[in-house]
């Protein structure tokens, strides 16, 4: 398998599991009738996904789906046998007055690093397991049926999930897109259509992230259906790979003697490095013999933050504390990067593309920030970075490390 972070020696030795989902809500409905939930049980190195499609659409379906994923994740975590879990879920879902049943489908994924993956499905399109562009069949699969609910068959699979593999799970809004409206797709896009599309995407972009692949599949499902989204669309992708490591260097080291070692941390490849702060950029210029270049056009369109610069062969450079503050608020409020000022956007987009974010923090306090003429209070770099780390872990399931100089 290709090493995705060629310069991240050593630190890329362990594996990272990327779990992402993309959703579109049926046109005209305020709430999505599908729900996707992820959980990582750190202590067990275990990763869980639940995707559910509630009967119907709108708020009622949303309640069914979210109840299902919430319960399913808890039961998986507590190792309750699938059959028992399914019965409890089915027994507790509210009954639809029109249809006289309470119903939500599900796909569950349970994986422990170093072991096999278990997938349980009921009513959803069958999962897709890809190794590169090759589909991988389960090691074994079997059906379980509840005595209470004899018409609800659950398919269980044991899967050999290896580094570089991807699992795709979706709601029928994806596989049935185009159904009844496209003459060339009598039965909709179907699982085979999703499979062909995913293979073709991976062929073109072998390292495509789970985030981009899930979004590409969901968008395609949306595009297939002319005139709006006919059913809720959800696609979850799990991708096991070597972590993509990014480093953010910010602030000058406390002792100047450490500048050289600090600067060496920036040699990870230009796509993976951000220098945050003017003094930081100056240290890299001096120690690595690079120049920070700011394009004039970037000065004008910076959108309320100082402009962004590039250091050829090393990475990008931004201003420090104001930019980090903006990055922090976007991460805490989970605002999409697209609408942020250029420098914050560049950092956020990089963060989204990487799995592990290593902060290299110089702890020297910048005296000029204490200037009484400065109209606003400037927070301390260390505390802003700590909050960024917490938001990345909690809201985006990134791994974060903090190293002080």
């Amino acid at each position, binding site marked *: 398998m290709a090493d995705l972070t060629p310069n991240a020696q050593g630190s890329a030795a362990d594996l990272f599991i990327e779990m992402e989902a993309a959703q579109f809500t049926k046109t005209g409905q305020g709430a999505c009738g599908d729900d996707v939930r992820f959980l990582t049980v750190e202590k067990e190195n275990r990763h869980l996904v639940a995707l559910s499609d509630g009967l119907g659409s709108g708020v009622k379906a949303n309640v069914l789906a979210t109840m299902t994923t919430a319960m399913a994740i808890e039961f998986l975590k507590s190792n309750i046998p699938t059959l028992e879990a399914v019965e409890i879920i089915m027994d507790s879902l509210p009954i639809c007055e029109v249809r006289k049943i309470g119903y939500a489908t599900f796909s569950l994924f349970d994986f422990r690093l170093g072991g096999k993956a278990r997938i349980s499905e009921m009513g959803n399109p069958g999962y897709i397991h890809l190794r590169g562009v090759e589909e991988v069949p389960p090691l074994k699969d079997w059906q379980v049926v509840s005595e209470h609910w004899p018409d609800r068959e659950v398919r269980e699979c044991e899967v050999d999930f290896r580094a570089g593999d991807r699992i795709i799970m979706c709601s029928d809004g994806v596989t049935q897109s185009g159904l009844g409206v496209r003459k060339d797709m009598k039965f909709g896009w179907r699982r085979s259509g999703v499979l062909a599309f995913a293979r073709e995407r991976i062929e073109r972009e072998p390292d495509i992230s789970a985030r981009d692949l899930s979004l590409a599949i969901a968008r395609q499902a949306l595009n297939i259906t002319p005139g709006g989204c006919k059913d809720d669309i959800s696609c979850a992708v799990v991708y096991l790979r070597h972590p993509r490591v990014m480093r953010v260097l910010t602030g000058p080291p406390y002792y100047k003697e450490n500048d050289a070692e600090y600067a060496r941390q920036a040699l990870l490849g230009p796509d993976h490095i951000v220098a945050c702060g003017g*003094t930081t*950029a100056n240290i890299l210029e001096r120690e690595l013999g690079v120049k920070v270049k700011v394009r*004039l056009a970037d000065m004008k369109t910076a959108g309320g933050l*100082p*402009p962004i610069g590039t250091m050829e062969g090393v990475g990008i450079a931004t*201003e420090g504390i104001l930019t980090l503050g903006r990055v922090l608020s976007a991460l805490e409020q989970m605002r999409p990067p697209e609408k942020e000022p250029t420098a914050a956007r560049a950092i956020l987009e990089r963060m989204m593309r990487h799995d592990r974010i290593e902060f290299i923090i110089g702890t020297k306090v*910048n005296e000029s920030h204490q*200037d009484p003429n400065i109209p606003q209070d400037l927070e301390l770099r260390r505390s802003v970075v700590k909050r960024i780390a917490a938001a990345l872990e909690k809201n985006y399931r990134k791994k974060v490390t903090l190293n002080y100089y």
Partner: protein
Amino acid sequence: MEKVKVEICCGTACYLLGAANMMDIEDKLPAEWSGKVEIEAKPCLELCERENLGGAPYVRINDTEVMAQATPDKLLTRIGELLGGAA
């Protein structure tokens, strides 16, 4: 003088104390100066931590001259002087 080089500091202190207003300085240059003024943005000129230089925002002109408390007007006037009163 043939050509004037201007380095505008975009570090935190300078940006907050007024450099933000100089980001579009290029658009304010008179047409007859075209080709004679080179404008660059710099991460931090490392003048902000020194005392007695007059205060941010700082602009460096022709590698040696430091302008403290720079404003677009002050900067344009000084460039004009250096170019030989062309403004």
